């Protein structure tokens, strides 16, 4: 039962990542691509936390935390650049 639920969870997150990637490639404007990148970085942070649980490694939580911080800073920098404020 556990493995079935984990498989469903991973398939749902992978489908979400693929939809975000399609929007990232198609997106008509640069703001669409920034939104898609933001969404994908949130999903990847969740996948890191799940991998920490699957492999039973506490250190992967730190990796997820650093990834979340760096993704946030990257999105802010891209948005300020699109505003012509950098």
């Amino acid at each position, binding site marked *: 039962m556990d493995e079935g*639920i984990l498989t469903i969870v991973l398939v749902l997150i992978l489908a979400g*990542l693929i939809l975000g990637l399609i*929007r990232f490639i198609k997106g008509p404007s640069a703001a669409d691509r*920034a939104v898609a990148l933001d*969404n994908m970085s949130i999903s990847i*942070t*969740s996948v890191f936390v*799940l991998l920490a*649980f699957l492999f039973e490694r506490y250190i992967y939580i730190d990796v997820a935390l650093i990834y979340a911080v760096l993704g946030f800073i990257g999105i802010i920098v891209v948005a300020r650049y*699109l505003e012509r404020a950098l």
Partner: protein
Amino acid sequence: MEILKIIGYILLLLGAVFLFLGALGLYRMPDVYTRLQAGTKASTLGAMAFMLGVGFLQPDWMVKIIIMIVFLTIANPLSSHAIARAAHKLKQKPYTKGEADALEEAELSIEKENQA
């Protein structure tokens, strides 16, 4: 022990469903602002439920997971606000027509005050 495991798996499934629905809204919606609405709020809730589920499955890790949830609660609305502001500066048109644009009116009034 068993009840914590059941709660954890339910939260994990709920979070994955919300992450998928957020990405589906990102794919289906017609313009930038509605994509922000669907893609950011739903995936914030999804990520929070997901991490809380892992915290219920491994109760020793709860402290650092709560730190991550607090950071997500602060950071995700900030980044979506910055992207929406950038889209407005890029003159992206909303999908609906004839609505008031409060940000543009405020900027025009500030320009008038500076000229006077």
